[in-house]
């Protein structure tokens, strides 16, 4: 009986579903071949393995910019696996998700889940804990926060909020929590080193990048310092697809990695010389007449006049009494005289030096910014650039020509050229290429620096910083303190030290492995932590941060999270996150934890939200024009909706470069010339190449002419560039302990990777224990030797947890001095110290 009914069922199911919707054109023969034959009953066992009682479409929330959807299959109340839904409205985005999303269920049920609230009973990091109840935990936290607030002020309680877009409700709640209690709040985007400061410098925006779908429009792609294949798994196929269509993909990186193996051409510059390379390209672009003069004239600061005496832009106030200091001046070719600049004007002179009579009757020599740029670019002839970068002059000429001649060419950069002390200069130099060739603002063009899931595709203001009274502008706000200063201490050059610096006393990392992943690890642990009186860590797993905490609170995993909303810079969709299983152990949502603590601090009513659904709804309702018309009901129904942004595929500055609205910079134009005092003081008013701050054998932080005559004493002691970088097996420290993946990561342990020639000099053989060290700290690991690492560099794939490292820490040799240019303004996560994680040196010896 059973057999017959089963066969009938199968037959029915094949014909009704497969025949109508088969991918591979199932003809009759194929269909009947799939019919179950007599005698192999065991096959039913596998059939039973795929079934579950429900499938929930949700999104994983790591900070990888993927925001990939998964169909979580639940069987007997247990999430047994995650399948690929392949349901993005634009099919180019399908499938989306890598082996990490596939194995997330291993983390949900992993052995290192935090199961109940715990209080430290031994020394910090000793691993001695006492289980406590939630009420005890909440009461203790609230009383400690009260004590610290009374003694040092509430702003010394410091919330560290990692990238909010990963889960707007749960991550954003950290901001709300800090706001309503007037706590201090840290920064993430700049301190991670992910903020491309060149963007606020050039365009006065946080960051603007093309969505990955836009690769389909490009005719020439340069991937610059971003191992797309390893670190942008969900979107890397856009580049390999482009190759199939005949688009050339060029890769610039000192390291031979997956992306180098895939690309049509791989260029290996000396680490940290990317700005020189970009300036060399620009030099050739200018020399060969490939500059789009009309574009530069209409949309950039090129035609604006700059005073020769002080390097400042000439203003209307300089010319006429009562003139505005906000109006810039161009030399108008129609009236043959100076004129207040109008955006997109056709009659401004792009080149030239002019004699201008000021309001005081003085004669001033003024050049257009473009004229000054041309002078600067002259220094970067291919021969000199070849000397700096090690890339041959012939290649520089050829690549620049290819880029300049392409109908539309794009640059896809990454942290590789941003995690540097002078990352802003590298960014500005690459953007300059895009500006000169008119590629910025074009679909298939632009300069997109991919790093970090910072991008919220709705306005979170009301949720993050609640209004004090409906209808009035006053808001509850946290008091920012840049994470860079928390670790580094204050600097003399910081913007508004009085207001922005204080010694913090309590740390609440809101969903990030702060102590495990922090740069300046040695300093943080040795100097900062002893001053901290309370560390509260809500965590899923016993991360390094949880191991060093005073209180650990169990938080629900993404599968247990009832509801959330997520967005990313890589695509334009806003997506619904839905729970598929009940909370495990005693886990609670971040939102509920904040609410309960607020209640005890007397701010529960202001914090208001306890249920994630209510908060999701609120976020969408107050989210502004990008999500207009996207209600929670609609999102529940459709799961994934494109936000209101054009063009499609999205390309930033599309309207601006077409004369529809100007840029939001002071000049209203794209600013490759900056005239703030500090830019002038450091001679960075124009993009230049400066040698790395540490990782150079030449004069550090100096321009080439001077630098090449000097020797860096630090580098003589520590002659290897130290690079702790992302790998394919983890998203930062997430998944780093997932055994299923660790097993696939070569030998399954941290490895110090070197060029065989460097290893030989130091008597290190593959598999030997080796130590990479400098004055700040060290890390001990086995050596792996491969040609992929250039001579003079050491590479370690990062993310390993405290207990996985033999000795030291992979971030211990890393320290980040703060670049004063990054301190001209302070706008959390928009303008602030950008860490130069890759600008590091070390020496390696056999352990």
């Amino acid at each position, binding site marked *: 009986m059973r057999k017959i009914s089963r066969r009938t069922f*199968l037959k029915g199911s*094949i014909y009704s*579903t*497969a025949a*109508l*919707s*088969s*991918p*591979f*054109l199932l*003809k009759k*023969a*194929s269909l009947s*071949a*799939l*019919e179950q034959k007599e005698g*192999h009953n*065991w096959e039913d*066992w*596998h*059939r039973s*393995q*795929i079934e579950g009682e429900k499938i929930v479409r949700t999104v994983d929330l790591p900070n990888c910019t993927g925001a990939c959807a998964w169909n979580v299959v639940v069987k007997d109340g247990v999430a047994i696996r995650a*399948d*690929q839904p*392949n349901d993005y409205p634009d*099919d*180019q985005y*399908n*499938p989306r*998700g*890598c*082996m990490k999303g*596939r*194995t997330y*269920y291993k983390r949900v049920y992993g052995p290192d889940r935090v199961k109940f609230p715990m209080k430290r009973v031994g020394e910090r990091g000793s691993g001695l804990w006492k289980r406590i109840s939630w009420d005890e935990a909440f009461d203790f936290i609230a009383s400690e926060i009260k004590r610290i607030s009374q003694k040092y002020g509430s702003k010394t309680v410091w919330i560290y909020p990692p990238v909010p877009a990963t889960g707007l409700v749960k991550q954003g709640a950290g901001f709300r929590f800090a706001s309503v209690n007037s706590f201090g709040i840290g920064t993430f985007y700049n301190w991670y080193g992910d903020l491309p400061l060149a963007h606020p410098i050039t365009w006065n925006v946080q960051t603007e990048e093309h969505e990955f779908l836009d690769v389909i429009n490009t005719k020439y792609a340069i991937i610059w310092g971003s191992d797309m*294949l*390893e670190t942008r798994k969900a979107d*890397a196929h856009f580049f*390999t*697809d482009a*190759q*199939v*269509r005949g688009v050339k993909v060029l890769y610039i990186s000192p390291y*031979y990695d997956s992306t180098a*193996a895939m690309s049509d051409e791989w260029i*290996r510059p000396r680490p940290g010389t990317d700005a020189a390379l970009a300036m060399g390209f620009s030099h050739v672009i200018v020399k060969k007449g490939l500059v789009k003069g009309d574009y530069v004239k209409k949309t950039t600061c090129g035609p604006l006049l700059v005073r020769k005496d002080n390097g400042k832009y000439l203003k209307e106030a300089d010319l006429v009494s009562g003139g505005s200091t906000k109006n810039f001046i161009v030399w108008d070719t129609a009236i043959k005289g100076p004129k207040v600049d109008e955006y997109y004007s056709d009659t401004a002179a792009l080149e030239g030096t002019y004699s201008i009579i000021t309001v005081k009757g003085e004669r001033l020599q003024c050049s257009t910014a473009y004229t000054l740029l041309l002078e600067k670019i002259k220094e970067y002839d291919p021969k000199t650039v070849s000397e700096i970068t090690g890339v041959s002059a012939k290649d520089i000429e050829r690549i620049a020509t290819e880029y300049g001649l392409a109908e539309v060419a794009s640059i896809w950069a990454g942290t590789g050229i941003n995690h540097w002390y002078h990352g802003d200069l590298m960014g500005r130099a690459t953007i300059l290429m895009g500006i000169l060739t008119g590629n910025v603002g074009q679909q298939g063009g632009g300069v997109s620096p991919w790093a970090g899931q910072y991008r919220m595709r709705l306005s979170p203001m009301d949720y993050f910083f609640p209004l004090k009274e409906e209808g009035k502008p006053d808001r509850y706000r946290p008091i920012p303190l840049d994470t860079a200063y928390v670790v580094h201490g204050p600097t003399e050059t910081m913007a508004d030290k009085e207001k922005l610096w204080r010694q913090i006393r309590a740390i609440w990392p809101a969903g990030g492995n702060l102590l495990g992943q922090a740069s300046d690890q040695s300093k943080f642990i040795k100097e900062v932590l002893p001053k901290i009186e309370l560390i509260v860590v809500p965590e899923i797993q016993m991360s390094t941060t949880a191991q060093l905490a005073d209180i650990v609170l169990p938080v629900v995993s993404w599968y247990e999270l009832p509801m959330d909303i997520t967005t990313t810079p890589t695509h334009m969709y806003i997506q619904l996150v839905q729970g598929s299983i009940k909370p495990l152990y005693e886990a609670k949502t971040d939102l509920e934890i904040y609410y309960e603590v607020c209640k005890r601090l007397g701010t529960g009513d202001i914090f208001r939200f306890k249920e994630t659904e209510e908060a999701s709804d609120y976020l969408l309702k107050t989210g502004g024009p990008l999500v207009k018309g996207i209600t929670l009901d609609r999102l529940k129904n459709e799961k994934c909706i494109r936000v209101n942004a054009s063009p499609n595929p999205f390309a930033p500055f599309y309207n601006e470069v077409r004369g529809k609205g100007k840029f939001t910079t002071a000049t209203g134009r794209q600013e490759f010339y900056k005239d703030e005092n500090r830019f002038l003081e450091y001679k960075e008013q124009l993009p230049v190449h400066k040698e790395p701050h540490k990782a150079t054998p030449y004069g550090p932080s100096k321009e080439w002419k001077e630098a090449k005559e000097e020797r860096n004493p630090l580098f003589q002691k520590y002659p290897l560039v130290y690079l702790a970088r992302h790998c*394919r097996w983890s998203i930062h420290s997430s998944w780093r302990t997932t055994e*299923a993946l660790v*097993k*696939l*990561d*070569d*030998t399954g342990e941290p490895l110090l990777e070197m060029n065989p020639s460097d290893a030989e000099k130091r008597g290190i053989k*593959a*598999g030997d224990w080796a130590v990479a060290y400098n004055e700040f700290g060290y890390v001990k690991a*086995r050596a792996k030797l*491969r*040609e*992929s690492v250039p001579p003079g560099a050491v590479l370690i794939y990062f993310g390993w947890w405290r207990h996985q490292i033999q000795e030291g820490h992979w971030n211990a040799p890393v320290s980040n001095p703060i670049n004063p240019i990054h301190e001209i303004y302070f706008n959390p996560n928009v303008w602030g110290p950008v860490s130069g994680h890759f600008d590091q040196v070390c020496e390696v010896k056999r352990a």
Partner: protein
Amino acid sequence: MSIWEKYYSKPNPVYGNKVQFGMLIDISKCLGCHTCSMACKSTWTDNPGQEDMYWNNVNTKPYGKYPREKGSKDPVLYDYKNSNLYEDTPMGKYPNLWQFYLPRPCNHCATPACLPACPTRAIYKRADGIVLIDQNKCQGYQYCIKACPYKKIYYNKATKTGQKCIMCYPLLEKGREPQCVSSCTGKIRIFGDLMDPNSTISQIIRDPEKGARPYRPESKFKAVHRYLNKGERRQYRPDWGTIPSIWYIPPKNVPPEEAEKYFGHALKGLISEPYTPEGPIKFPEG
């Protein structure tokens, strides 16, 4: 095309199947992400005894190998641990470095070597060309493991049986593609019936120019755009003579004579010796 005519244009001469499911994999586009391996593993081999069993695995060639011989000539004693050793270790000297990722599921060969090796007749080829081991009949003699030149049968110490890729037949029966295909983020795999002259896969394999166009599923099935490279379609180690049903587009950034060692042309002469160079790095045993 004679291989095609001989094995795919008429019923299988030995097993009579009129359908042969297979795949085409574009190596140049492989991201090396192992999503296929983990999609497979999380669906089928996440049980006791299957800890180091990857029905589909990915290696960085030329040095990566799974399983590794580790001094033994007997496949039963091979080492299945650390399946991804020598990850991203290229061959050559700068600037002439090369490596490629090689994803390998079971080949579900037209003339499988494992099947006739089984003393208990537990291995059979279904009417759709999928080769399976009947878990009820298998007695764990492991002759199939020795016979399969691709080493794609694994011994499960918990169940004491041989186990292998099942080409996700339960999903096929529901009209879904195999897990390694539907979840391939690099979009490098195409699945279908090799013996159907009109199927996408058989058309794309027979016409190497066709791959440049996006693969549009002919139906409403949730399949995705796929652009494959042009160029010859090959099998991995066709010289072993089992007529594998997994086809590849060999990597383009690898010296052609090196690619030839892996994806030789079955009709252009056989490669005599298995080719896996010794890795440059030795790790302590154990």
